[in-house]
């Protein structure tokens, strides 16, 4: 269950930037291989994003899983919308869909 205050906090985090990544660790120092992989992809595409370190906040760490009905971290949000976790981001990157998706949302991204 997600209480209203926590839901509002997560809403605000997701709305804080066009591209938001809930991750373990920070973009500079990821603390999990799956988070590191997504950071690597975003960096490679030259996409600006805000990383939110769930290890610093247990309520966000558990709350984000309920919020998105998604059991794992990392989680990528673009313009407020949940895009996927590590496997989905990797697949979209490999097929070129990820760059397309960013460009559709008016976000600069290099071709993969």
């Amino acid at each position, binding site marked *: 269950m997600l209480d209203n205050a926590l839901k509002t906090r997560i809403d605000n985090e997701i709305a804080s930037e066009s591209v938001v990544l809930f991750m373990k660790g920070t973009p500079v120092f990821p*603390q*999990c291989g799956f988070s590191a992989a997504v950071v690597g992809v975003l960096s490679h595409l030259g996409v600006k994003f805000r990383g939110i370190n769930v290890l610093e906040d247990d309520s966000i760490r558990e709350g984000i899983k309920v919020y998105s009905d*998604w*059991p794992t971290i990392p989680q990528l949000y673009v313009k407020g919308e*949940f895009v996927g976790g590590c*496997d*989905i981001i990797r697949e979209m990157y490999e097929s070129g869909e990820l760059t397309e998706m960013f460009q559709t949302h008016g976000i600069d991204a290099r071709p993969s």
Partner: protein
Amino acid sequence: MATADTIAQKLKDALSPQHIEVEDVSHHHAGHAGWRDGGGTHFTVTIKAASFAGKSRVQQHRLVNSILADELSGDIHALELHLSS
């Protein structure tokens, strides 16, 4: 404990896949968060199933996650999914 066999069986029962592979990759993560000796914490799953047709990637993953909900809230620390229809 979650094993590659019990996970594969659950997914087979629920999805009747054309192809399924479940690999316990826990040993690749020795010493990482969530890992413990003896395996059963990290899995890579590849499934080709008609039930995924017409579903978005996120929906396909949610379907698998819902089938493995008990394992995900218990032993499984990481589940890498490669899904196709």
